[in-house]
């Protein structure tokens, strides 16, 4: 049993997305596609949820892809191989619901590409046909292309600026597939809420079953605080224990988007103070030379 969690590998992938391999042997034993961990960098740190993108039984490691967007994720981006995380706990959430004998289309945007990875693999393992649609703003921001090719029957890529694959959004590709009546049994979408909403709106018109993995603000991950509550159909659900995967056609995305902004003013203050101290530190370091 470990009490600290060392970073064994770290890669700087695309703009502000980092890959980490972290020793967490207890978690690996039970990890399943669609689950996540909660981590804390240091005493006084925030608890943040991150999806299990991959894991290695033999080494007892988990692989995480983290996009640096606020204070905690930016601080994490500054950690090096050999540094420790104070806490990593999990796995949390219900595993993804995998059905056999389907054509499974996974749509991933941003860190969502890492999040669909184990689910696509789980579908591939039961013999499903897997098509992965991954998207980003431009070519250099596409992550995990090789890993996705290894487990997908087909990978289709969209970039906003057209620097790679189809010019447009992931929904541009999905829409054309649905319009051309390509067989699609189940769609899974993970990424920014706006993307998951667009995918769900689209597939609803075609009556295609759609799963989304929600990313509300969380804290404990055990169903104790209710911060992660979302509305699915008519019922309140706690995404950490009842999800994070839900029926995309029943999710109240507008509520989720509003609730993600719950602490925006505070997060901004936190980031500003952090950047200021970072700058003074850099300044001191250069001054010493």
């Amino acid at each position, binding site marked *: 049993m470990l009490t600290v969690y060392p970073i064994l590998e770290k890669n700087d992938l695309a703009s502000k997305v980092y890959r980490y391999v972290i020793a967490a042997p207890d978690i690996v034993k039970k990890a399943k596609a669609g689950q996540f961990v909660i981590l804390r960098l240091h005493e006084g740190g925030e608890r943040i949820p991150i999806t299990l993108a991959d894991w290695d039984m033999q080494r007892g490691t988990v692989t995480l892809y983290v996009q640096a967007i606020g204070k905690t994720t930016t601080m994490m981006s500054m950690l090096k191989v050999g540094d420790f995380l104070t806490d990593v706990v999990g796995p949390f959430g219900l595993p993804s619901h995998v059905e056999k004998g389907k054509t499974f289309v996974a749509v991933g945007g941003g860190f969502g590409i890492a999040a669909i990875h184990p689910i696509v693999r789980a579908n591939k393992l039961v013999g499903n046909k897997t098509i992965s649609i991954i998207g980003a703003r431009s070519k250099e921001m596409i992550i995990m292309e090789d890993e996705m090719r290894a487990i997908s029957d087909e990978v289709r890529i969209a970039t906003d600026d057209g620097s790679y694959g189809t010019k447009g959004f992931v929904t541009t590709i999905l829409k054309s597939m649905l319009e051309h009546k390509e067989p699609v049994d189940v769609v899974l979408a993970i990424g920014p809420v706006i993307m998951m909403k667009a995918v769900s709106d689209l597939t609803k018109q075609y009556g295609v079953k759609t799963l989304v993995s929600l990313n509300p603000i969380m804290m404990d991950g055990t169903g104790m605080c209710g911060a992660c509550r979302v509305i699915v159909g008519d019922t309140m659900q706690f995404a950490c224990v009842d999800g994070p995967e839900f029926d995309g056609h029943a999710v109240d995305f507008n509520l989720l988007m509003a609730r993600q902004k719950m602490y925006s003013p*505070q997060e901004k203050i936190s980031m500003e103070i952090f950047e200021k101290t970072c700058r003074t530190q850099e300044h001191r370091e250069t001054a010493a030379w």
Partner: protein
Amino acid sequence: MNETTQPTIKKISNKERMKIPRHAMPEQEPLVRAKNFFEVPLGYTADMAMEEADRCLQCKDPKCIQGCPVNVKIPQFIFHVAMGNFELAANTLKETNALPAVCGRVCPQEEQCETVCVIGGKVEPVAIGRLERFVADWERASRKVSLPAIPRSSGKKIAVIGAGPAGLTCAGDLAKLGHSVTVFEALHKAGGVLVYGIPEFRLPKQIVEAEVQYLEKLGVKIQCNFVVGMTRTVDELMTEDGYDAVFIGTGAGLPYFMGLPGENLNGVYSANEFLTRMNLMKGFEFPNNADTPVPMAKHVAVIGGGNTAMDAARTALRLQWTEKVYIVYRRSLVEMPARKEEIHHGEQEGIEFLLLTNPTRFLGENGWLTGMECQKMELGEPDASGRRKPVPINGSEFVLTVESAIVATGNGSNPLINKTTPGLTANKYGNIIADESGKTSREGMWAGGDIVIGAATVIKAMGAGKKAAAAIHEYVTAKKK
């Protein structure tokens, strides 16, 4: 020396004794403490404690002992205090109560030992809780905390799930009997409600930490970041990891919402979320020493009348930007389940109590809470709980301007263990069914505390942990390898 017969403390008559006034607790000034997170009561000095102890009649038939859920030998420990033998007093306390520094602060003595204290009929009862607190604090400060002799290892492994008062007590007792005990805790810190729920100004976290360290010295292993049911199931602990018995003390940590319109607006929180942000995550030090943000609202309404509601209200008040805090409770003051002392503290600090008032909906703009519509209530016939049932008064609706509303209307039990442990039976509320000793429907599994009896008290949880420890000891000792 036989303490149970009339001892000679100070040669004065009982009549004289009863003339000594109950010693007031020195406290921080209400308006000062309303903006800080330091503890409110400052504690008795040794002189005060000895004077207060002199008030005890050392009854032949001490009612106080029966009033205590774990039957602390109250007159005996008070006798030692009166004699100035604080170390002996501490030892006496600890025979039955593993966490006296905690209980001396948070137990509802006014409903337990003190309410039945023999002199209570005529004058104010002996301040048993304050004396308990004094003794425990004295012991900690004097570093006289002694480790009991631990018998040779029994070779038995016991898993305790949940590091709340129930689990910690059970773990301590089993370790003292020579068993190898590991406590598995889902959060990153041990203590349960004592660290995530009850605020610093009522129970300094350093006290809980000291208690946890004491257990570690007894040989208890505390494994945080371990969610039983997810990281490992109870069955895996027993069949694969070789634990001979399990104690489940996972508490009542499932927040109830009210199902009112607008409940998901930004600014509406469960008390669990608010208190966890503030206590466990140290949100009151945001943004300098803690990264977890807390709500920034000028006007706060807390809905409910229990300890949780009082704690949430008094915590919200202490944030520098808060101007006004309301407690919105549907019954009247006498029915409020919170400890009287805490209600009194809240009143002193300037919390406004809107009694016989119930929220009907939350109002908002652009996704953010701007107000709460409430309705006045009146008391009708007694309900199942024996308390008069509040009934709404038609047309009495009014809007309270608040940017933050904290729902503290109760907690249910977390279903995780029940869902992942086949054959473990629970009642319709999700409480695990257990007998007097904590024995559940599954062999080798005991349970106790809030997960069995529903949200209750620290001392009851500890009592349950103690009983289960005795039963588990008997079970593993009889069990062949």
